């Protein structure tokens, strides 16, 4: 059994004391920022990128991954108890989760969310282990033209599946591509968009951009909005175990949410948020009595909470096997790999099996830890909500500043981060999602590289992209996606899917 021996290798790596420690740190930080509104996994992972430079690659990635799926657990806690989504992926959990809490079933809702997440996390781990190797083999047969077309498809799918205006998202991708051009042109060694600033001749560092836009930008956005009052539920959570009735309603929803999330997570542009929204819509559609939704329906908690955790984890598949990030968090993970000089792509699995399987195995260990961290210790996390944002933002700001400075011991980077902070705030204010920009920034140089290589293969003939069957298929898929989103009927239902809350 190849699968089992691979997982055994992974467990060997993941179970070293250091890596168990980093998985725990990741899970703890993930739960913490999941519980706290005002800071999400993207900002946190961006802030911690510079730190991972000083760790073993596998330890750093284990920790960052833990933050991402840990946040899915933490986010549901706030959603249920306080009616405030800690993360965008738990927005829909508020609807029925908080209603359950008001009916005195807070413990039941929390337990179902945590157990559903754990089940989904376990299944998703096995899905990664089973599907990643064949996908990587497909990836290894890809040449430069196929890669270029795959990235085109990835970017377009990311736009179509993300929420908000498609036009603005494409514009943000272009903006990301433009920011990626800043620096010295690799081909001609001439300077592009450097404004005669020597520090910019190496280009904009990925971590600096990400910390600026997501870390500093969110701090500004939260401060301008003013502090919202948080009323923490004062009642004690008496029963942590769901009733038999709740349980029998929940488990089919958990299964459905896990399947849906696993599929949507793999798609470019998918991931936790899309999965949870889609799962909620699904549960409401197939329910015998849809009117229960919004009044504390157990399925409305079980489905989305399983789906977001499954989606969070399976979104690692395209990143790990093909080197293609499907969402902003995966773009950050690619950034973390390149910091260590690891070129993401199908060769990672064959050349660095310890890294790959260690990370996959750590996900299951991390999920197990999260179950323990979240269920018995729930009271502690709820207390954390009483920490006012005025302390939180000072710490975030400081960590952004020190983190950015340590990347190259360059004070100039801090100024660049400040600039992107203001830019990030303006983007958010004008409802221009910054996530596509990060994808463009990461994929830009890769696309340019593959484009030039493809041109060298074909002797400058752009028809190479259409002559190769796989490349042609990928481009056709991209074109179909664009056409679909242009149809008014689809546009409307897409809009509704994200407006469900």
């Amino acid at each position: 059994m190849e699968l089992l021996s691979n997982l055994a290798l992974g467990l060997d790596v993941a179970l070293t004391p250091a890596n168990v420690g980093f998985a725990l740190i990741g899970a703890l930080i993930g739960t913490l920022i999941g519980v706290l509104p005002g800071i999400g996994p993207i900002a946190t992972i961006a802030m911690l990128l510079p730190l991972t430079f000083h760790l073993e690659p596998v330890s750093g990635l284990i920790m960052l991954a833990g933050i991402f799926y840990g946040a899915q657990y933490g986010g549901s806690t706030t959603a249920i108890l306080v009616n405030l989504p800690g993360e965008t992926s738990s927005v829909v959990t508020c609807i029925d989760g908080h209603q359950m809490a008001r009916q005195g079933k807070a413990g039941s809702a929390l337990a179902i969310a945590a157990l559903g997440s754990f089940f989904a996390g376990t299944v998703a781990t096995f899905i990664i282990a089973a599907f990643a190797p064949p996908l990587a083999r497909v990836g290894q047969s890809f040449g430069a033209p196929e890669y270029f077309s795959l990235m085109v498809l990835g970017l377009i799918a990311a736009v179509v599946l993300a929420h908000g205006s498609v036009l603005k998202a494409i514009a943000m991708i272009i903006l990301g591509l433009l920011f990626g051009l800043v620096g010295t042109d690799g081909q001609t060694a001439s300077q592009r968009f450097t404004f005669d600033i020597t520090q910019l001749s190496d280009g904009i560092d990925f971590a600096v951009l990400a910390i600026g836009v997501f870390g500093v930008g969110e701090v500004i956005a939260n401060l301008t909005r003013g502090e919202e009052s948080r009323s923490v539920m004062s009642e004690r959570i008496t029963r942590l175990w769901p009733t038999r009735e709740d349980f029998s309603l929940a488990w089919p929803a958990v299964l459905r949410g896990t399947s849906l999330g696993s599929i949507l997570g793999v798609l470019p542009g998918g991931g936790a948020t899309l999965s949870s929204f889609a799962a909620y819509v699904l549960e409401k559609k197939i329910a015998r009595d849809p009117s229960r939704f919004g009044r504390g329906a157990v399925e409305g908690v079980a489905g989305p909470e399983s789906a977001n955790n499954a989606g969070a984890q399976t979104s690692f598949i395209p990143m790990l096997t093909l080197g293609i990030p499907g969402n902003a968090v995966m773009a950050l993970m690619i950034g973390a790999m390149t910091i260590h000089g690891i070129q993401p792509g199908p060769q990672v699995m064959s050349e660095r099996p310890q890294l790959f399987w260690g990370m996959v195995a750590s996900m299951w260990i991390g999920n197990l830890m999260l179950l323990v961290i979240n269920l018995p210790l729930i009271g502690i996390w709820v207390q954390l909500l009483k920490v006012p944002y005025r302390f939180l933002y000072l710490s975030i700001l400081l960590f952004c500043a020190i983190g950015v400075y340590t990347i190259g011991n360059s004070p100039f980077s801090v100024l660049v981060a400040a600039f992107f902070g203001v830019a990030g705030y303006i983007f958010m204010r004008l409802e221009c999602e910054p996530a596509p920009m990060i994808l463009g920034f990461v994929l830009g140089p890769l696309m340019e590289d593959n484009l030039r290589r493809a041109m060298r293969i074909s002797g400058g003939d752009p028809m190479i992209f259409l002559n190769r069957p796989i490349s042609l298929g990928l481009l056709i898929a991209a074109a179909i996606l664009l056409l679909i989103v242009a149809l008014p009927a689809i546009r409307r239902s897409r809009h509704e899917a994200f407006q469900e809350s």
Partner: protein
Amino acid sequence: MTIDTPKSAPPPHPLHILARKNVLAGLMFIAIASLGLWVSRDYPIGTALRMGTGYVPRLLCWILMGLGAVILLQGLKEKDAPPERTSLRQLMPIVVVTTSLVAFALAIEQLGLVLSILLLVGIGAIAARDIKIWELLIAAIVLVALSWAIFILGLGLTIPVWPVW
């Protein structure tokens, strides 16, 4: 992430149409594209086969310009979209956060980690209207200790801790 905008009906004033989200976003993209085209005006373009330094940048800028124009037009055609309003109180955090980061950047190599943290926290705290002096002091002490423990002790980074003269 949603940002609250005032829900009141917009008075029919041309300036308010300009203050709509999509109009502003369109204008922003057009402005960035124009800046990019202006900066790259002397970059050699080359041909599609032998792309010069300026080929991709200028192409991207033109696409961005086009997208910006479409977004702008869509924004102008929208019916009863509320105009963006920004009060002075909302601008304050932008200035404060930027200033605190700039101060940190200027201070870190000369004044060292401890004083730079105090500067950043001190300036940054202005954005929190209701912070008390003793809260600020405790926050500063905790953050100095935490940063020292993580970055100097834990990761062994060579950041100057105290002022270097």
